[in-house]
């Protein structure tokens, strides 16, 4: 028993074999959006550092962040931000012991996608 085969046993296939579900897909995108937000965060850190450094440095950083590319990054990041925030609030609801059954979990997943899209459009219009 002590020298059983380690590390070469068949593993249960998971991601590749299951039909995509609202619960799993929304969870994966919470992870992707959360970590992708470091791009916009570092852009904003750079922007603040440049503003503190002086007008020339600010002109460079501000030029990048207000270019079409900067706009695109910030627009996608606002979407990622609201989506990730709703995902986090969903975790707080689950941690508190509510809405844990499959039907309600899937409804929460659909709701957070819709709300995140609406909040992103609202932010893009207002800001």
């Amino acid at each position, binding site marked *: 028993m*002590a020298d059983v085969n380690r590390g070469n046993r068949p593993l249960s296939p998971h991601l590749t074999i299951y039909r995509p579900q609202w619960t799993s897909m929304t969870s994966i995108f919470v992870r992707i959006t*959360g*970590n992708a937000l470091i791009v916009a965060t570092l852009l904003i*850190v750079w922007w603040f550092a440049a*503003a503190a450094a002086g007008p020339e440095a600010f002109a460079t950083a*501000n030029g990048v962040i207000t270019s079409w590319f900067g706009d695109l990054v910030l627009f996608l990041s606002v979407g990622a931000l609201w989506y990730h925030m709703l995902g*986090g609030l969903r975790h*707080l609801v689950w941690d508190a012991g509510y809405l844990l059954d499959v039907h309600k979990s899937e409804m929460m997943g659909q709701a957070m996608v819709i709300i995140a899209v609406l909040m992103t459009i609202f932010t893009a219009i207002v800001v």
Partner: protein
Amino acid sequence: MAYMTDRKRAVGNGAAKTGTEHHWQMIVTSCALAILVPFFVFTFGPALGGTYEEIIAYYSRPYPAIVAALTMLVGLIHFRGGVQTLIEDYVHGMARKVLIIGAICLSYGAAAVVLFAIVRLAL
């Protein structure tokens, strides 16, 4: 022929014993960010696009400066915890350690830079 018993092989590979604090830190920072992020988006967003002089004047005010400093600091601490979980799930061995150390340095480094910059703008 290996003499190690199943029990001996399992000892030490169980719970890491430190996960509770990590989870709790993510909970606390996420609660803080749920409040801070809307304030930051709707103070930083309208300011963006202003001239150098407008930005200096805007971030000399306490409210936008404190909101920006807190959001960046708590956000980067939250990222530091989140990205560590991401790395632990997908990367193994030495690369895992290097990436985790690098991510922690990046998080605190960026936090230090942005706090210094905001304090300098505000004062």
